[in-house]
C-alpha cells in the first residue's frame, strides 16, 4: 500500500470515529497535536499555535462570546509576518487613508475571513478598545471595515496590525469606485422594490371591491379606478423603469430581449386601463400591472443580492498584486509602488513577500511558492540566475531580483489575459430564451392583427374589447416569470447549503452537467503539507525519526517544516542548527549530528549514496547511515471521497486535471474512484482538455488557484473553493463557501429539480396562453376575466417555483 492511501485512510477513519476539529478554525487537527486554549473555563483543542494565539487574545479581551454566536468558522491565521510597518510610512499610508479633517483619518479595509455577524461584532469591540479609534463600521456583506481614528495617517499600520492579530487578513483599499457602484445598485433596487410593494398592496386594496361587487355604484367604481391609476403610475414609471429602459435599448438596437414582451404587455394593459378610466368605461388592469412589476423586481432583487455577496474582480486584484516594492535606487533602498517599477531595477523581496514582477535572481537563494501560478503544491527552489515569476511568494530567505518583465508582460498578467479571453467566448444560455420570446412576440402580434381584422368584418363594435382581451391573455407574464422565479428560489436554496451562485444561467447548466472536473491541490486536498509516509532504514523507529526531524525543523519557518511542527510531541531540542537554503537543515539532537533535507545534502554527511530520488521526499541521516525517508503530500479533504462516490452514483463522470506530479494524482484518483486523471497539466492544456469534454455535454469545473482561473472561465459551470484565491472566485459561476465538497452532488440534484419545475412552469404558461387565446379571440373571455387569468397564472408559477425551497427544507 502506498503513502497517499495510508494518509487518506487515516483521515477517513478519523472523521468516522473520533475526529478532532480545531475550536477556532474548525479544521481537522492533525494526529499528535496537543495544543489547548482555555475558553470559558474549558480547555478547547486547537490545531496550531496561530489559532491558539488568536483564541487567547479574544479570551483575554473578554470577547469569547464570539465563539458562541458565530455562524461560520474562523479563518486559519497565517504565520506571523509583520508586513504592516510599511504602512507606517506616511507616503505610502496616504494612498489609502483619507484625512479630510486635521488630526482625524479614515480608511476602508477589505478583510478576508470576515464571514458572519459575530466577526463584525468581534472586530468592532476589539478595535474600539483602542482609545485612538473613533468609529468602526463593519459591513459583513461586502467584507469591508471602515475605520476612523484620531492622530496621524501612519496610525493606519496599527489598525491593520490589530486586524491581523485577530486572525483576519486585511487588505488596504484605495479604489472605492466599484464598491460605490454596487452600493448604489442595491439601494436603487431596494427603493424600487419598496415602492412597487407598497403600490401593489394599495392598488389591490382599492380594486378588490370592484371585483366583489358587480352592482357597485358607477361613480364609486370610477373613483376607485382613478385612485388605482394614481398609484400604478409611479409603480410603472419608477419601479418598472429598469424594464422600460432595457426594452427600449433592445428595440433601439433592433433586437428583442425578454423585457420587450413584458414591457409591451405592461404598456398595453396600462394604456388600456388609462384609456378606460378616462373615458369612464370598461375594465382596468392596474392591479395586474403593479403586481407583475413587484414580482419581477423581487426575483431580480434576490438574484442581485446573491451576486453582490460573491467577490468581485476588483477584490481579486487587490489581493494578488503586491502594491509596494523595495527597490535599490542610487544605492538606497526605497519603497516604490509596483506601477512605477522599471526594467533592470533591482528589487529586494523579503521573506513572505510576493514577487512584484518577473525577474532574475542576482543574489540569494530561497524557496518560492508558485502554487498560484503553476498549481505545483510544493515550494520550488530558486538560486542565483534562475528566473522568478510575479505573484509567487518568497518563503525562506531574502532575494535580490533584477526585473526583466514589468506590468503587461508578466506571467501573472498573461494568466489574467488568458482568463479575459476565455470569459469572452463563454456560451450564453440566455440567447435561447431571447429567441423563444422573439418568436412568441411575433406570433402574438400576428394573432392580434388577425383577430382585429376578423372582428372588424364580424362586428366592428366589439373590436376594442376583444383585441384587449387577446393582448392581456397573451401577455407573457407567467412565461417571463417562469424561469426567473425558479432561478431565484434555487439560488436561495443553494446559498443556504453553502454554494453561492453568481450567474443566472448557472442553474440551468448545472442541471445538465454530466462530467465534473476537479483540480487536485486545494480542491480535492486541503493544500496543507503533511508527512504522508515514513520509511525507516536504520535502527530508529518511525516515531523517533519523526521527533528528531521535528526538532531539526523547529527553527525553520517553511511550509515543509510546518508538516513536522504539527506532529511534534517530543521534548527533544536541537542545538547547533544550521540551515542551508535549498538543501536542508543540519543540527545536533542528544549530541548526535543529523541532517535533514535533499538526498545530495544528506549524502554529504552519511556518504551512502541514495538510489531513489524523489522530489517530494526528504531524507534524514546521521553521520553513519540514512535513517528515514519522509514522503510529503497534502491532505485529502474529509468529504472528498463521499462527494466522488455520490457523483459516481448519480452517473456523473469525475475527472482530475492537475498541475502536480503524476504519482500523487494517480494515488488520489485510485483512492477516491475517480474515473479519469491527467497530471502535469499547464493552464492552457487544461483548457484544451476541458473543451474536448465539453463537446459531448456540459462540464462543471471545480478549482481554487489562479492557474485554474482560465479553466474555470472556459467551463460550462465553474465552481471555486471558498478558501481559494480571489481571482479563481471572480471567474467562477459559483463559490463553495465552506469548502464542503459534499454539497456538490446535492447542488446538482437541486439544479435538476429546479430545471424540472422550470419546465413545468413554462409548460403551464404556454398551455394557459395557447388555450386562452382562441377563447379570447372568439369573444368568450371579457377583459377583466383575462386579467384575472393573467394574475392567477403568474401566482401559480411563483408558488410552483417556491417548491424548490420547501422540498429542500423537508429533506
Amino acid at each position, binding site marked *: 500500500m502506498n503513502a497517499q492511501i495510508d494518509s487518506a485512510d487515516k483521515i477517513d477513519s478519523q472523521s468516522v470515529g473520533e475526529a478532532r476539529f480545531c475550536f477556532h478554525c474548525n479544521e481537522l487537527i492533525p494526529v499528535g497535536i496537543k495544543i489547548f486554549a482555555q475558553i*470559558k473555563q474549558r480547555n478547547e483543542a486547537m490545531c496550531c499555535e496561530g489559532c491558539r494565539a488568536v483564541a487567547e487574545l479574544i479570551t483575554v479581551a*473578554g470577547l*469569547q*462570546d464570539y465563539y*458562541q*454566536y458565530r455562524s461560520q468558522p474562523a479563518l486559519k491565521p497565517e504565520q506571523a509576518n509583520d508586513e504592516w510597518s510599511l504602512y507606517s510610512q506616511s507616503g505610502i499610508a496616504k494612498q489609502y487613508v483619507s484625512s479630510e479633517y486635521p488630526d482625524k483619518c479614515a480608511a476602508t479595509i477589505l478583510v478576508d475571513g470576515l464571514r*458572519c*455577524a*459575530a466577526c*463584525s*461584532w468581534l472586530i*468592532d*469591540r476589539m478595535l474600539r478598545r483602542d482609545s485612538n479609534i473613533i468609529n468602526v463600521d*463593519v*459591513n*459583513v*456583506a461586502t467584507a469591508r471595515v471602515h475605520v476612523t481614528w484620531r492622530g496621524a495617517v501612519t496610525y493606519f499600520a496599527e489598525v491593520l496590525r490589530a486586524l491581523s492579530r485577530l486572525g483576519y487578513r486585511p487588505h488596504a483599499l484605495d479604489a472605492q469606485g466599484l464598491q460605490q457602484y454596487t*452600493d448604489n445598485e*442595491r*439601494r436603487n433596487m*431596494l*427603493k424600487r422594490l*419598496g*415602492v412597487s410593494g*407598497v403600490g401593489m398592496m*394599495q392598488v389591490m386594496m*382599492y380594486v378588490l371591491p370592484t371585483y366583489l361587487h358587480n352592482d357597485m*355604484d358607477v*361613480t*364609486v367604481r370610477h*373613483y376607485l379606478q382613478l*385612485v388605482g391609476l*394614481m*398609484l400604478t403610475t409611479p409603480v410603472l414609471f419608477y419601479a418598472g423603469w429598469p424594464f422600460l429602459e432595457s426594452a427600449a435599448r433592445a428595440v433601439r438596437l433592433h433586437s428583442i430581449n425578454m423585457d420587450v414582451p413584458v414591457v409591451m404587455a405592461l404598456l398595453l394593459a396600462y394604456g388600456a386601463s388609462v384609456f378606460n378610466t378616462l373615458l369612464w368605461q370598461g375594465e382596468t388592469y392596474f392591479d395586474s400591472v403593479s403586481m407583475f412589476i413587484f414580482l419581477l423586481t423581487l426575483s431580480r432583487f434576490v438574484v442581485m443580492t446573491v451576486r453582490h455577496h460573491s467577490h468581485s474582480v476588483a477584490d481579486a486584484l487587490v489581493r494578488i498584486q503586491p502594491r509596494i516594492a523595495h527597490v535599490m535606487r542610487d544605492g538606497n533602498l526605497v519603497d516604490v509602488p509596483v506601477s512605477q517599477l522599471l526594467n533592470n531595477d533591482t528589487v529586494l523581496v523579503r521573506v513572505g513577500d510576493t514577487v512584484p514582477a518577473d525577474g532574475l535572481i542576482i543574489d540569494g537563494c530561497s524557496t518560492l511558492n508558485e502554487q498560484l501560478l503553476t498549481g505545483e503544491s510544493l515550494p520550488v527552489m530558486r538560486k542565483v540566475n534562475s528566473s522568478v515569476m510575479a505573484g509567487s511568494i518568497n518563503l525562506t530567505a531574502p532575494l535580490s531580483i533584477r526585473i526583466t518583465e514589468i506590468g503587461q508582460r508578466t506571467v501573472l498578467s498573461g494568466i489574467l489575459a488568458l482568463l479575459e479571453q476565455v470569459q469572452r467566448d463563454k456560451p450564453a444560455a440566455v440567447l435561447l430564451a431571447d429567441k423563444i420570446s422573439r418568436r412568441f412576440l411575433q406570433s402574438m402580434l400576428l394573432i392580434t392583427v388577425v383577430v382585429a381584422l376578423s372582428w372588424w368584418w364580424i362586428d366592428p363594435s366589439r373590436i376594442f374589447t376583444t383585441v384587449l382581451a387577446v393582448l392581456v391573455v397573451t401577455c407573457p407574464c407567467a412565461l417571463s416569470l417562469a424561469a426567473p422565479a425558479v432561478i431565484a428560489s434555487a439560488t436561495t436554496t443553494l446559498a443556504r447549503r453553502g454554494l453561492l451562485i453568481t450567474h443566472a444561467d448557472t442553474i440551468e447548466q448545472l442541471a445538465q452537467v454530466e462530467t465534473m472536473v476537479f483540480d487536485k491541490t486545494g480542491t480535492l486536498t486541503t493544500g496543507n503539507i503533511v508527512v504522508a509516509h515514513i520509511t525507516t532504514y536504520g535502527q530508529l523507529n518511525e516515531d523517533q525519526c519523526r521527533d528528531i526531524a521535528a526538532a531539526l525543523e523547529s527553527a525553520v519557518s517553511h511550509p515543509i517544516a510546518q508538516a513536522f511542527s504539527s506532529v511534534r510531541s517530543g521534548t527533544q531540542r536541537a542545538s547547533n542548527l544550521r540551515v542551508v537554503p535549498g538543501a536542508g537543515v543540519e543540527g545536533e539532537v542528544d549530541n548526535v549530528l543529523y541532517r535533514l533535507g535533499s538526498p545530495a545534502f544528506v549524502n554529504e554527511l552519511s556518504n551512502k549514496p541514495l538510489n531513489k530520488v524523489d522530489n517530494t521526499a526528504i531524507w534524514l541521516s546521521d553521520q553513519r547511515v540514512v535513517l528515514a525517508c519522509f514522503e510529503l503530500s497534502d491532505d485529502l479533504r474529509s468529504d472528498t471521497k463521499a462527494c466522488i462516490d455520490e457523483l459516481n452514483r448519480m452517473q456523473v463522470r469525475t475527472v482530475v486535471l492537475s498541475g502536480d506530479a503524476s504519482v500523487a494524482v494517480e494515488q488520489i484518483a485510485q483512492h477516491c474512484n475517480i474515473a479519469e486523471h491527467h497530471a502535469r497539466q499547464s493552464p492552457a492544456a487544461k483548457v484544451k482538455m476541458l473543451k474536448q469534454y465539453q463537446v459531448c455535454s456540459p462540464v462543471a469545473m471545480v478549482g481554487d488557484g489562479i492557474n485554474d482561473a482560465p479553466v474555470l472561465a472556459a467551463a460550462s459551470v465553474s465552481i471555486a473553493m471558498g478558501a481559494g484565491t480571489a481571482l479563481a472566485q471572480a471567474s467562477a459561476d459559483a463559490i463553495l463557501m465552506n469548502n464542503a465538497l459534499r454539497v456538490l452532488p446535492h447542488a446538482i440534484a437541486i439544479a435538476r429539480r429546479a430545471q424540472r419545475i422550470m419546465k413545468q412552469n413554462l409548460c403551464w404558461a404556454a398551455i394557459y396562453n395557447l388555450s386562452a387565446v382562441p377563447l379570447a379571440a372568439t369573444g368568450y373571455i371579457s377583459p377583466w376575466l383575462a386579467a384575472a387569468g393573467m394574475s392567477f397564472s403568474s401566482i401559480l408559477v411563483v408558488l410552483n417555483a417556491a417548491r424548490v425551497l420547501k422540498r429542500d427544507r423537508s429533506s
Partner: protein
Amino acid sequence: MSMIALLIPLSLILVVIAVWAFLWAVNAGQFDDLDTPAWDMLSDDDSTLSVKSESIQDKH
C-alpha cells in the same frame, strides 16, 4: 360615498409619507447592512450576555 371621498385621499397621503420615509431610510444607508446592527446590543452589557450564553451551553 362622502366618507370614501375623504378617507381615500387621507390614506394616499399616508402612503406618500410612508414611501418618502422608506426612500429616506434607504438613501441614509439604513438598509446597507442588515446583519451587523443586531450585534451592537451585545456591546454594553457583556456580563449578562455571558450568563445567558453559559446557560445555553449547558443545555447542549
